[in-house]
């Protein structure tokens, strides 16, 4: 357990090294937040209470999206590039005879990364958004820890999806195609572009039950106080259910994959 805590701290520190890049990223999140906020204002101006949100709630949703974009790696950009590279080059063989659990090792590192991104790229855009627009910030202080737990679960679901994707490199070798499909799906079905409650008909119903909705839609709704009491427990159960299912699938795929490993050369 201690080992994974060290890996987690390492993941945090690793990303903390790139200070200028983090500042540049927070700037970009803020710029996109402003552009999206203005389009939402125009939309909610025509249709107040669209998708069950009033305007301050919709604007809060925009800024939460910018704050969580990197934390939940909705466009990718975590450990998966590195893992795919290790599988492709065969370095994965070294990882496999280490006395650690491969999946937990990468999960710990990714949680560290997410923690850094939440602080480094989450707080500044959120503050800018709150300063420039009228946001619906939580009335009860209890919502903050509830939101954080939901974010952690979202990060685990995001990790589990990306772990599966990375393992596909055992069969595909080139990860570019699947990575691209993954970030497209993540961007669209997490609700990053528009709240999923605005998606029409069947597409909307489907988007709400897919794992990606655990990345932004669920944490944002927790933040906005849409889930309280039993509904909150249900929201957590939804996220945790996907986390367990996808992590389990990752285990199965991992054992299938490691049986395939052929170490080349001496």
């Amino acid at each position, binding site marked *: 357990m201690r080992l994974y805590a060290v890996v987690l701290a390492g993941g945090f520190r690793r990303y903390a090294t790139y200070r200028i890049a983090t500042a540049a990223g927070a*700037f970009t999140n803020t710029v996109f937040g402003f552009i999206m906020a203005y*389009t939402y204002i125009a939309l909610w101006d025509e*249709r107040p209470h669209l998708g069950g949100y009033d305007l301050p709630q919709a604007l809060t949703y925009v800024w939460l999206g910018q704050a969580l974009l990197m934390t939940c790696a909705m466009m990718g950009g975590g450990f998966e590039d590195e893992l795919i590279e290790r599988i492709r080059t065969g370095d994965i063989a070294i990882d496999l005879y280490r006395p650690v659990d491969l999946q937990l090792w990468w999960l710990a590192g990714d949680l560290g990364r997410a923690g850094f991104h939440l602080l480094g790229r989450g707080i500044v855009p959120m503050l800018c958004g709150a300063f420039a627009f009228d946001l619906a910030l939580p009335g009860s202080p209890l919502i903050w820890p509830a939101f954080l737990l939901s974010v952690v679960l979202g990060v685990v679901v995001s990790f589990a999806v990306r772990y599966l994707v990375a393992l596909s490199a055992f069969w595909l070798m080139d990860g570019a*195609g699947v990575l691209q499909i993954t970030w497209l799906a993540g961007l*669209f079905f997490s609700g990053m572009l528009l709240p999923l409650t605005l998606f029409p008909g069947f597409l909307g119903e489907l988007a709400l039950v897919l794992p990606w909705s655990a990345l932004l839609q669920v944490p944002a709704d927790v933040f906005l106080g849409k889930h309280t009491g039993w509904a909150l427990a249900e929201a957590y159960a939804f996220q945790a259910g996907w986390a367990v299912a996808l992590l389990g699938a990752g285990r199965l795929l991992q054992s299938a994959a490691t049986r395939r490993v052929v170490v080349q050369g001496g």
Partner: protein
Amino acid sequence: MVDGLRAYGLIAVMWMRSTMTYRASFAMTAFGNFVGNSFDFVVILVMFAHVETLGGYTLPEIALLYGAAGTAFGLADLAMGSMDRLGRRVRDGTLDTLLVRPASVLAQVAADRFALRRLGRITQGLLVLGYALFALDIAWTPLKAALVPVMVVSGAAIFASLFVAGAAFQFVAQDAAEVQNSFTYGGNTLLQYPPTLFAKDLVRGVTFVVPLAFVNWLPALYVLGRPYPLDLPRALAFAPPFVAAVCCALAGIAWRAGLRSYRSTGS
């Protein structure tokens, strides 16, 4: 200049050949590029599933803004999109290799990893632009008809100069590639929507400071016969080629200044 273009062409052709070695992978990534950009427009379509107009503009009108900005940005991205790798080259010292070669450094950086898959973005922009021109009811004059291609080409040049200026900034900032994205990708997203959505100060900023408004807003609003933001004179619809020329010149100066200030990592 001629040598630079020649070098650019040679490097680009080399990367195209290398891309075409894996045709299936190329087809997939080009398709992904196409689909990825289409999501922006899907969002606009979902918005219009709920409303009739956005900021006073109808769907075909917004499609004209979107198509013009998207195509212009796609062209600039195809030609200059690799410029954002410059920061990495400065950090790891591989820029030195380019400096000792007898060819324009700008051409080498711009053509590096020339990505033909970016045709996906251009195709998507052109399709939306085509839809807009088909769906809009415009009283076409020769002037308006000529303005559409001029707008796309000058817009591409304005975006291209932003890519170059952003790269020049990275000589100083090194790992601030994302700041460039705010102006290029962010600018493209901004221009997909009409200026009536945005605060006056923001519109002023993208007209007089970073002249994004000349990419599509001013010429397209002329074609649509729509009122101008900030009470600007309508003659500005014809300014994009000149604005583009000035932007390219300024970006060229910034690039030279950046390159001159470059100190190798020494490794």
